[in-house]
């Protein structure tokens, strides 16, 4: 650790004092060189996100989303791929039943203490953590919706419910997000989302005699949307700006 003017003392020595012009600040020159050499080149996705969001910080926060990292995306593809194969083999719409639970897990693991290593620091930053949460949530949801649609299209037999599961998926994701935000625990979010979805499926089984009632019964769509709105309100309340502190 060095004080401001001593930063590059050793390097100055190595350059050679004899040949150094008097008015050149080699420390400043070195910092300029180092800045250029160490400069990170953002990938195309981050550059695009930076332009769309008009915030390089928010774009960087987006590409560091834990549930958007390659390993997680591969796992999601594998699960939905297995669902597609099962659907093709049995004719049952497993993709429609799996997609909401997988998406809920991704949402819960998008941001928060214990999940994002630097969450505490992020909470003291000018780019608001609420915006980070919102952007990451939308990105994870969008990716899962796209993968779910692709899986549904590939599995043909489930095409009839392709759009039926999007609304329930939104509700389950909102539940997972609300639980994770209020409890400040991604695991609680995942548990709430998956448990909520399993209960919904079981209820469909009990009431209509089939698991798929949860994604095919159009009478449920309005309650799903109302539930989503309630969960969104909870998230907004839990991440509100504290008042009365000055």
């Amino acid at each position, binding site marked *: *650790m060095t004080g401001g003017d001593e*930063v590059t003392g050793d390097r100055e020595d190595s350059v050679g004092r004899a040949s150094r012009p008097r008015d050149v600040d080699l420390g400043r020159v070195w910092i300029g060189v180092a800045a250029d050499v*160490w400069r990170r080149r953002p990938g195309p996705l981050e550059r695009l996100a930076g332009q769309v969001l008009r915030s390089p*910080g928010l774009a960087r926060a987006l590409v560091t989303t834990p549930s958007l990292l390659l390993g997680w995306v591969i796992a999601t593809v594998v699960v939905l791929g297995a669902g597609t194969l099962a659907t093709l083999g049995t004719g049952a719409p497993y993709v429609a039943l799996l997609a909401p639970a997988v998406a809920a897990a991704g949402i819960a693991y998008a941001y928060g203490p214990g999940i994002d290593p630097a*969450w505490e620091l992020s909470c003291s930053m000018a780019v608001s953590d609420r915006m980070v949460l919102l952007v990451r949530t939308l990105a994870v949801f969008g990716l899962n919706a796209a993968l779910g649609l692709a899986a549904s299209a590939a599995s043909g037999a489930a095409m009839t419910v392709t759009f039926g599961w999007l609304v329930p998926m939104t509700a389950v994701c909102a539940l997972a997000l609300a639980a994770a935000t209020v409890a400040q625990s991604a695991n609680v979010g995942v548990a709430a989302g998956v448990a909520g979805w399993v209960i919904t499926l079981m209820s469909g089984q009990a009431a209509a005699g089939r698991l798929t009632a949860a994604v095919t019964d159009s009478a449920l769509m309005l309650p799903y949307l109302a539930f989503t709105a309630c969960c969104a309100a909870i998230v907004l309340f839990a991440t509100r700006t504290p*008042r009365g*502190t*000055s």
Partner: protein
Amino acid sequence: MNVEITDLTRRLGRTQAVAGVTMATGRGVFGLLGPNGAGKTSLLRMMATVIPPSSGHMRLLGRDPGDYGQRKQIRRRLGYLPQNLGYYPGFTVVEFVEYFALLKEMPAVGVHHAVAAAVERVGLGDKATAKLRTLSGGMLRRVGIAQAIVNEPELLLLDEPTAGLDPEQRVAFRALLRDLGQRATVIVSTHLVEDVGAACTQVGLMDRGKIVFQGTPDELTARAEGTDAAGDAPLERGYSAVLAEARS
């Protein structure tokens, strides 16, 4: 005054972590001393705008952290090193510092220069492109300090910054603190009395959520005179004397 706090409290569950703190400080290095559980970290987290106070008044850099717009302005001028620094193991030193420079909304054109300067300032130039997972605890602490100072903050909050640093690094860090304190308000939470004696112009001693002493290190030392307070160094004896008096 860059920090003005009146009757600040913070309750964490059933625990009163901060119980009515009043303090004001301007430019310079302010050492926040106290035993474990005294409330130092909770007070620092409130000043870092990570958690809101339960009650009381706080103004930071002349602004109200309860207001969204003003809080954003404060955060742009703030540097914060938490007690437990979380990090992304796959990031390099430069990537990590740059990430927080961006989140502090530093002008994009100056970010790379500022990152390089901060990394050099904490003596990590030779590790600039090393992954964080390969660094020692002391080096990670210095990475944390680099991200805290990257925006040349007007208010710098450091929670146990010397934890994990070896004696040579601690000496260098104190020099850095003194340098930073010439232009900014630096608040350092520590339980190492020698850090305070070497680098701080003002000292506050916290116990059970309250500030029980505020003054200069010399004034803290003087509090031991005429007592049989325990301690190997004069400042330690002053620390012990004030704590004993507060608890009696």
